[in-house]
């Protein structure tokens, strides 16, 4: 068995990102889309931490950036879920193809 290197983490990040991308493109439920976006954020965080660990050992800049990403993701999901609740209260649906208020 080979030792775990940088490319293993990069492939894992790519796989998670692709799963999240597929979910964001195909889910009908808006909460499913939000969850898929969270998966993509996590893939980016894995890449940041892996580059930090393997290309700049001893430094913490990549991990600090990942912490900022986590914070922004938390803010995004809070506002997003509040918007989902407001939309649901007005249109009583959670499916994105029914969100056509601006279509006229």
């Amino acid at each position, binding site marked *: 068995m080979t030792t775990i290197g940088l490319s293993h983490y990069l492939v894992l990040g790519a796989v*998670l990102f692709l799963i999240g*991308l597929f979910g964001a*493109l195909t889910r009908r*439920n808006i909460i*499913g889309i939000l969850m898929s976006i969270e*998966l993509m954020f996590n893939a980016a965080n894995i890449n940041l931490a892996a580059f930090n*660990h393997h*290309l700049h050992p001893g430094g913490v800049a990549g991990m600090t950036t990942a912490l900022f990403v986590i914070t922004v993701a938390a803010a995004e*999901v809070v506002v997003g879920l509040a918007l989902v*609740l407001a939309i649901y209260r007005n249109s009583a649906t959670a499916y994105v193809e029914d969100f056509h208020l601006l279509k006229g």
Partner: protein
Amino acid sequence: MLETIAFYSMAAVAVAGALLVVTLRNTVHSALALGLSLAGVAGVFACLSADFLFAAQLLIYVGGIAILIVFVVMLLGRTTDLHNRQVNELWGAALLVCAITGAGLWRLTSFFGAGTGDTPHAAQTRAIGLLMLGEYAVPFELISLVLLAALLGAVFFSRKEI
């Protein structure tokens, strides 16, 4: 050897949870699988010896965001949703987009070899704190402003009479 086992098991948990998130029909189960996947990512951070990131991931993502999503999923939706299709009819095109993106990411990944291999495991919490209050002080203050704006926005949008 131990690191290899830890990495593969945590990666399997993360990928399996992510697959369940995008494929399950019941949104509540989907949200619970999201928590599982986020916990797996936390394990991957532990494999990278990122101790503070591991704790932050567990506290913020698994303990905060996943629970919040479960709450909102239970607030909205009807029982008829369980019989509806949860995937739109363009999944073939989405698969194509994912394949092309995956090919590009694979080419990018092949630039980087195995990396440096063994690196020393050291505690990083102190260094992260010093960096945040030193070199990264301005982004640190700005992110608190973003959090304040998100708080106000959430309160504003979830009022009754909007």
